[in-house]
């Protein structure tokens, strides 16, 4: 955390000049923009899911990676975000883009409240308390008093938004999925920039200090209860935004989509991507999206056993996740003369 020179530390260490970095970023933007036109619709849909999972994992990482609070309840926040968007669109005819902010606000409140018990519980006990949340939410969504809103077991079927304008590139039109790709990409970038700003500053340092040594952090004047609850709320808000986007992209919500296993999947994504790493969330998302499909292709009898093998090998080769491996390689290179 030394003072940053004019060029960003990462670029300087790699020996890249500013124009080269700009060219790299520009190339990345171009690739991101034309990629959906080069592949089939179904792949675009998968890219959308990766982006959504990346935001959800980023949310969980704020809590678990930076603040050291383990949550097995993030599928609940994901579900609340998704249902918030679905009900707004289905019942009130709200446009899809208007659902993200209410979903974030609702999940922030929900997460902030969940943060209070979290103040008294640490480590494994907190994990169990949040797991209870993940287990309860799918059942609560089936509750008959709110069935008129939630659609009960049957869930809510939504209509995918049409693109506001259309054109063709490489013979592929800008259709619903490609349009949603750009929407999702935009939201993802915004969320990552928000997280970056939050975590690279005073708040981020406070969160890390609480994780590493809560007593010392308290002695330094950090308001522990406030920071811990806020971390929970912010984390839930990120995941809620992801949930709302998933409702729009999948165009269907049902309690079975948000089982407690989803929480574990997010946690896998956080660990695979790298704890306390912002870009790691993208790699975690790629892992949880594609590895189960690969496992299913290898064996129909025991897809989860294959998934487990992948996970073990992955953790063995990259104990710090993808981000950890990146850092290790980077250090080795910068240490070399």
């Amino acid at each position, binding site marked *: 955390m030394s003072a940053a020179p004019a060029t960003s530390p990462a670029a300087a260490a790699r020996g890249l000049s500013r124009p080269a970095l700009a060219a790299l970023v520009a190339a990345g933007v171009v690739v991101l923009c034309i990629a959906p036109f080069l592949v*089939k*619709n*179904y*792949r675009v*849909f*998968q890219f959308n*899911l990766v982006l959504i999972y990346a935001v959800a994992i980023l949310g969980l990482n704020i809590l678990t990676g930076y603040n050291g609070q383990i949550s097995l309840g993030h599928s609940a926040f994901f579900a609340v975000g998704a249902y918030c968007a679905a009900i707004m669109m289905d019942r009130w005819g709200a446009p899809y883009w208007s659902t993200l902010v209410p979903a974030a606000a609702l999940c922030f409140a929900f997460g902030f409240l969940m943060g209070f018990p979290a103040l008294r519980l640490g480590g494994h006990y907190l994990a169990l308390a949040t797991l209870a949340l993940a287990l309860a939410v799918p*059942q*609560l969504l*089936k*509750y*008959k008093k709110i069935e008129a809103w939630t659609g*009960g*077991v*049957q*869930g809510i*079927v939504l*209509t995918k938004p049409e693109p506001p304008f259309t054109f063709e590139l490489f013979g592929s039109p800008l259709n619903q999925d490609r349009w949603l790709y750009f929407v999702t990409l935009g939201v993802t970038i915004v969320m990552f920039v928000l997280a970056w700003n939050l975590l690279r500053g005073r708040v981020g340092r406070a969160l890390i200090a609480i994780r590493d040594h809560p007593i010392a952090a308290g002695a330094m004047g950090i308001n522990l209860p406030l920071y811990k609850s806020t971390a929970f709320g912010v984390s839930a808000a990120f995941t809620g935004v992801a949930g709302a986007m*998933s409702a729009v992209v*999948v*165009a*269907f919500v*049902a*309690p*079975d*989509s948000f*089982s407690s*296993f989803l929480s574990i999947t997010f946690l896998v994504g956080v660990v695979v991507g790298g704890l306390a790493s912002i870009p790691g969330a993208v790699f975690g998302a790629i892992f949880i999206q594609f590895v*189960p499909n690969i496992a*299913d*292709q*290898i*064996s*129909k*009898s025991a*897809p*989860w056993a294959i998934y487990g093998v992948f996970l073990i090998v992955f953790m063995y080769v990259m104990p710090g996740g993808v981000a950890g491996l990146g850092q290790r390689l980077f250090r080795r290179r910068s240490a070399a003369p």
Partner: protein
Amino acid sequence: MRQSQRRNLIKLGVASAVAAAVPPGAFAQQKKYDPGANDREIKIGNINPYSGPASAYGAIGKAIGAYFDKINAEGGINGRRIKYITLDDGYNPAKTVEMTRKLVEEEEVLLVFQPLGTPPNSAIHKYMNQKRVPQLFVATGATKWGDPKNFPWTMGWQPNYQSEGRIYAAHLLETRPGGKVGILMQNDDYGKDYVKGFKDGLGDKAKAMIVSEVTYEVTDPTVDSQMVTLKASGADVFFNVTTPKFAAQAIKKAAEIGWKPLHYLNSVSNAAGSVMVPAGAENGIGIVSAFYLKDPTDPQWQNSPEYKEWAAWMARYNPQASLKDNFNVYGYTVAQSLVQVLRQAGNDLTRANVMKQAASLDLASPMLLPGIRVKTGPDDFFPIEQEQLARWDGKTWVLFGKIYGK
């Protein structure tokens, strides 16, 4: 899986060599194809929960594949091999959407066959109909799959809950027309479907006969208090619309409180292993439930040629699966219905013709109970609507009486 793919490729090579050797015109004229079909193969997509909480159903997906292996080994359908692509959704509707899109947009299958479960099928219902791809013979008993006016690309297969409800009503009117009925139902679409069919079946008499109707939530711990209420209502007929855990509780509780009504148990929960035995095999004596498939453990079938043929297929093509598992009978029988559809379609392998043929079936199948037929029409998207009743004798289900339903 890899290996079988390689095997498929070899078989495909052989098949195409054979096809090349046959002079053109040997097949009937006017070949018409939609994506997923050509002169050599027909691509069929399927989605099953091979992982996750409902993975026991995965046996169905594997059995279907094993039946297609047999068809392919015997020369395919009208000279075309079936290429069967089955994917795992873990019973997660969001994943079902992804996998369905993979099948339709990437694999370009002719049709999606037997996706399993009501929530997963609800998730893709609209998509399939927008894309005009058959969502054929879905593995769920909800009544909404038979709606050709609004969803002409979707069709169920197994008896739907409403038609089963009507069957119990028909039996009740024949045997105890003056009965006082108590109903216990799960408070969701599944429960409402059953009770609607039952009431429709009773017709005008429904109001007079039903004395008590109580519900429970999936989230309830037990149905004990509901059972006490039902007994207190003075009912002497009990229509039990519950999922396995609650069915077992209800049977046990009825015995405990000494309530001995004429007990109709919905087929969702008539498995011996998961309901009748846990409830106490003695407690369930006399309970009536509906069936349409031959139970592979029932000794009365085991010497029949139909059973032997099924067992021979199991031994050759599905050797790892259990001969006691009903799902293997189900997969075998539903695959036969699809094979019949594709045979009827002949050389017109368009999606529209697949639906047209699926809507003009009249077929008996070896492992369906004798007398039960798979029957459809342009306005009748409910293939199986007939069932036979059976009574639990403390050890097994004993079939009795006629075939009900149309």
